């Protein structure tokens, strides 16, 4: 089954920057995909389109067979709850503790309190932040904030996980830990799309690699590597 499908999708920003050009791509359920390419090639744009943070200029995007371009605005929250997203700039809530930030993803879908108390510490332990659950984002290092963002993205076990450079601020050891977590999430059937610059990670994982360059899809390779 196709989980994500891009049909002829282009994105031109208000200032006429063409960030994506005629992208055609299908991602199957349960796939693990690396989105690579130099800075400014359109990786974040690709991810933002999927959660409708921005709107495509042309083309259609399907998620689980549904055209999300035609989604009513009242259905957008529903879409976002089914897509965990690790944002490149983390997007943590500054006035909430680590615990509350992660719990928020469960609050919005109406999970009961006892479940939140059970799940959040588990997930925080997974990303190695169980000792900092009462800290506020500004009290954390960049890498720690990134791990909170990761924990929040998958605490509600969404069918799709998007990760925009989730290892960007992490040392190799922690990065490996995060990749193990993402692999594990992928193993239970979650479709994972990860934008990254990290050559070592891509090369060691040997998963599908899609390469963008100036908004164009220039390579789509099964069990690929980072590139030259």
């Amino acid at each position, binding site marked *: 089954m196709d989980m994500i499908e891009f049909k002829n999708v282009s994105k031109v920003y208000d200032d006429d920057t063409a960030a994506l050009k005629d992208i055609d791509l299908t991602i199957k359920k349960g796939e693990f995909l690396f989105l690579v390419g130099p800075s400014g090639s359109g990786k974040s744009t690709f991810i933002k389109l999927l959660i409708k*943070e921005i709107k495509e200029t042309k083309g259609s995007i399907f998620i689980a067979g549904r055209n999300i371009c035609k989604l009513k*605005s009242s259905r*957008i*929250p529903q879409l*976002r709850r089914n897509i965990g*997203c690790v944002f490149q700039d983390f*997007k943590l809530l500054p*006035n909430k503790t680590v615990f509350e930030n992660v719990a*928020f993803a469960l609050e*919005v879908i109406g999970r009961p309190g006892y479940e939140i108390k059970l799940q959040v510490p588990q997930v925080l332990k997974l990303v190695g932040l169980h000792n900092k659950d009462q800290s506020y984002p500004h009290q954390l290092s960049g890498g720690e904030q990134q791990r909170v963002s990761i924990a929040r993205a998958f605490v509600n076990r969404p069918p799709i996980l998007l990760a925009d450079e989730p290892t960007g601020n992490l040392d190799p050891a922690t990065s490996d830990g995060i990749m193990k977590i993402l692999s594990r999430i992928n193993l239970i059937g979650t479709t994972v799309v990860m934008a990254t610059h990290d050559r070592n990670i891509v090369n060691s994982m040997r998963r599908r690699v899609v390469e963008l360059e100036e908004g164009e899809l220039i390579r789509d390779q099964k069990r690929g590597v980072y590139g030259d």
Partner: protein
Amino acid sequence: MVRPRYFFSETFTSLKRNFLMGFTAITTVAITLFIVGFFAILVFDIQGIINSIKGQVELAVYLEDNISTELKEYIEEEIKSWEETDELKFISKEQALERFKEQNQGSDILKEIQGNPLPASFEITLKDPEKVDQVALRFVDKDGNYIEGVDDVIYGRNYVRRLFSITAIVGTIAILIIIVLLLATIVLIFNTIRLSIYARRKEIEVMKLVGATNWFVRIPFLFEGFFEGFTGSILSVILLYLLSSLLLVKGESVILETMRVKELAILGSGNMIFYIYGGIVILGGFIGLLSSAIALRRYVKV
């Protein structure tokens, strides 16, 4: 999806953590509504004084000494039948003398009075004192003379006219002041709450990106706005209470003693002060809620 636990704890913690913004909003509400309340008391008292002065305007119709009982009774019935008449009192010659003696107790004048030089009279209080001119004219015939049996009609024409034009001006000014104050208050409170929501627009954006519905984001902000408006208005009521019980009540008791004014905000029989307090609290909560609602319309969009 009803989640009172989340919304309450969210509102509470958010108030705690955005303390400075909330504090600003609450003090803004408290101070502005305090001023509005203070003016409301002032305007009400001034209006009360004006009304009581107006109420004191009455017509005295002095009767000729030799008036026949029939004519006296006929005039009495006439006056009673007019719809402008509120109260009618007949003062006989004896009562007039009695009253004169009472008012001038111990004065030398009393010794000089022989017999009873005072006329009998009708004292008319009008429902609408501004009609006093009209009513007085009814005691005058076509030729400009007083009708039979009536010796004189007295009501201080110029004084009444001036009084009414002054009270009209004072009333208009007072209402204008209250309206302007209210508008300023609403704008000020609205801006404060809007700013506090504007300051958190990124937060709102993030909540939405994580899948929160509009209402999920809105409700805690609405609670917060209501709470700020409500708390601020309670504070202003406390301030007003202190001011009125320490200061205003003294002024009012002087007015009460010297002018016998019935309609006073604090000491009056209508308990107006409680309506003012209640109005302030309702207004505060309402403006808080409404301000958040309007501000959210701007910042909480998909």
